[in-house]
């Protein structure tokens, strides 16, 4: 009997070593708190809930402590575990192009086609990427890591994940979480910079209404967009190819079912898997480092630089534009590719100064150009550094 009780005791003691309570460290609790904060932001503040809910909950999943030496195959970094299998889409970089397929199928490029000069704002805002790249180099990261961190300034989660999975896989969790966090915080980060860099007169500029765009132009856009950008930067092919393909599905008018699948069930499925696994990849043991903290700092800086460069570019651009063709610099912030949030910010800030001035459709131009621009920038970095 005594032996049996000893057996039970040792069994229970063994079991205790497998529990989360036994294996927990303070880092786990920090990450769990961050996850809960993300869920709070999504539910209470409605900041990018589609992203923050999966990422936040993924953080909870990824930070349940367990005995890592037991070979339970439950952790995301344990080969063969379910989470690890789902994470392959991130590490091999095939989730982001599928997300781009969906984005292409849901994006209307009409605003850009009707006023193509807005594309240049999308290009100017990419300075955020390279500004952060230079600062990251200064802070001691190597060029590949600096490029992966800099891409946060593109404000494009899938692109950030795609590039970091190739250039700096060890920093991918921090980069992805940073990119998505700041995308969710666009309503907080951008307005003060926009107000700071513009005069009241500039904020009241009314832009010419966009012209109607024909079906032929809409069909031509993805085809020419693909050929022109990918002949220039073939390394951007996975992202740009899928983006323009998705857009052709939408605009061709004859593949409605495919377009609906791409912008509906497909992108939803991939968003769930991507968000959850990116969140789970923030396992405390891998995530809580000084580098992660630096990445968060650089991410914020890159957003600030991108927003400022977009706004300042419009101001400079206006110097050479005719009086009736001037651009409201409040749409400069939309050059970052956080679609459609940054365009919405242009509208909201613009409406504060003139409620009858509708900037949303104009801001969508640089906004979608930003998607193209950041994918091109990612392609360039990949081409140069890999």
């Amino acid at each position, binding site marked *: 009997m005594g032996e049996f009780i000893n057996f039970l005791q040792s069994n229970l003691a063994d079991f205790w070593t497998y529990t989360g309570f036994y294996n927990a460290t303070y880092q786990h609790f920090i990450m769990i708190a961050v996850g809960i904060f993300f869920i709070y932001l999504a539910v209470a503040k409605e900041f990018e809930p589609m992203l923050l809910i999966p990422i936040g909950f993924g953080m909870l999943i990824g930070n349940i402590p367990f005995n890592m030496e037991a070979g339970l195959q439950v952790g995301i970094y344990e080969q063969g575990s379910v989470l690890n299998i789902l994470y392959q889409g991130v590490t091999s970089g095939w989730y982001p192009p599928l997300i781009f397929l969906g984005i292409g199928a849901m994006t209307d490029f009409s605003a850009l086609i009707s006023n193509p000069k807005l*594309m240049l704002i999308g290009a100017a805002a990419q300075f955020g990427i390279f500004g952060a790249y230079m600062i990251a180099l200064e802070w001691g990261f190597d*060029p590949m890591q600096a490029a992966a961190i800099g891409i946060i300034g593109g404000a494009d989660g899938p692109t950030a994940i795609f590039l970091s999975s190739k250039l700096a896989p060890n920093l991918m969790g921090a980069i992805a979480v940073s990119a998505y966090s700041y995308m969710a915080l666009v309503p907080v980060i951008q307005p003060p910079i926009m107000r700071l860099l513009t005069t009241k007169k500039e904020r009241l500029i009314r832009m010419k209404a966009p012209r109607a765009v024909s079906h032929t132009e809409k069909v031509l856009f993805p085809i020419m967009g693909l050929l022109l950008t990918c002949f220039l930067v073939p390394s951007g092919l996975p992202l740009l190819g899928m983006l323009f393909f998705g857009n052709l599905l939408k605009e061709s008018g004859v593949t409605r079912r495919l377009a609906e699948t791409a912008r509906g069930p497909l992108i939803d499925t991939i968003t769930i898997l991507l968000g959850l696994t990116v969140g789970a990849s923030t396992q405390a043991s891998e995530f809580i480092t000084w580098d992660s903290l630096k990445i968060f700092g650089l991410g914020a800086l890159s957003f600030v630089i991108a927003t400022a460069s977009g706004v300042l570019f419009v101001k400079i651009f206006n110097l050479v534009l005719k009086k009736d063709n001037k651009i409201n610099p409040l749409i400069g912030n939309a050059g970052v590719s956080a679609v459609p949030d940054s365009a919405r910010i242009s509208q909201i800030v613009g409406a504060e100064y003139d409620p009858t001035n509708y900037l949303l459709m104009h801001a969508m131009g640089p906004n979608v150009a930003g998607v193209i621009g950041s994918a091109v920038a990612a392609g360039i970095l990949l081409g140069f550094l890999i």
Partner: protein
Amino acid sequence: MNKYIAGIFFASALLGAFCSCTTPEAKSKIVINEVLVDNQENFQDDYGVHSGWVEIFNTSYNSVNLAGCYLKVSSEPGDTVSYFIPKGDVLTAISPRQHALFWADGAPRRGTFHTNFVLSKTKDNWVGLYDSGRKLLDEVVVPAGVLKTDQSYARVSDGSDEWEVKDDSETKYVTPSTNNQTLEGNPKMDKFEQHDSAGFGMTITAMSVVFIGLILLYVSFRIIGKIAVKLRKRNAMKAHNITDKQEAKERRLGEAPGDVIAAIAMALHEAQGSDHDVEETILTISRVKRSYSPWSSKIYTLRENPHKK
């Protein structure tokens, strides 16, 4: 005038593109990468024997299977020996940018990678690699007399065009089944760290490329937009039976200002909105009618339950 500008733009773009194009030479994915003729103290096979060897390299970023290919060797005209690389051995699949080593020991019964020929130590050795359709993929002549014992004749680096004698010196070493030149760092990264430690060069280059890409799109769609507007005006003139351009301009034919479109959209929205119940408490169920398609047919998606007997 615009048509001419468009024409000139596209013609010059096409001309530029064609001029910058190079005619790619049909290069084989698998090449002979290194040959060692006289093996005394070099790499030994799994039987512990020192024999000459031929290394094949997969230059592509995809797996290539050598099964069914032929390795041929000749040291005199007319004495060509042909070795058929057997099928059914998974090891004949070479991973991307990896190597396969064939022993020139004349003992094919020892396994897939042991050939039926030996290399001549006194004469030139011609080595050819053929695909299963007997098409020559790559060939090399290993000159006699230049190779000493345990020295190999190899491409300077994997898959490169230049060959050299690997004499096991500091920079030229014999490398069976591995890279002909070992990289001791990341040259691209080193270049950036050396010449562009602050990142200005990368920023200027990359931003220029981003701008060029989007400027190209801008120019293209500016031209396409102008053509589209012209076409729309012409179609509107046809529809209204007007030939005078001035009259068409005055009547603003083909133009659809945003405010007009917005007014139409709002009117449509209101009209459609009035079809529905306003009261929150009333539930309206619309009958959805879908056209038949075999893809969505229930008959094809139903599973037959097992019959009870």
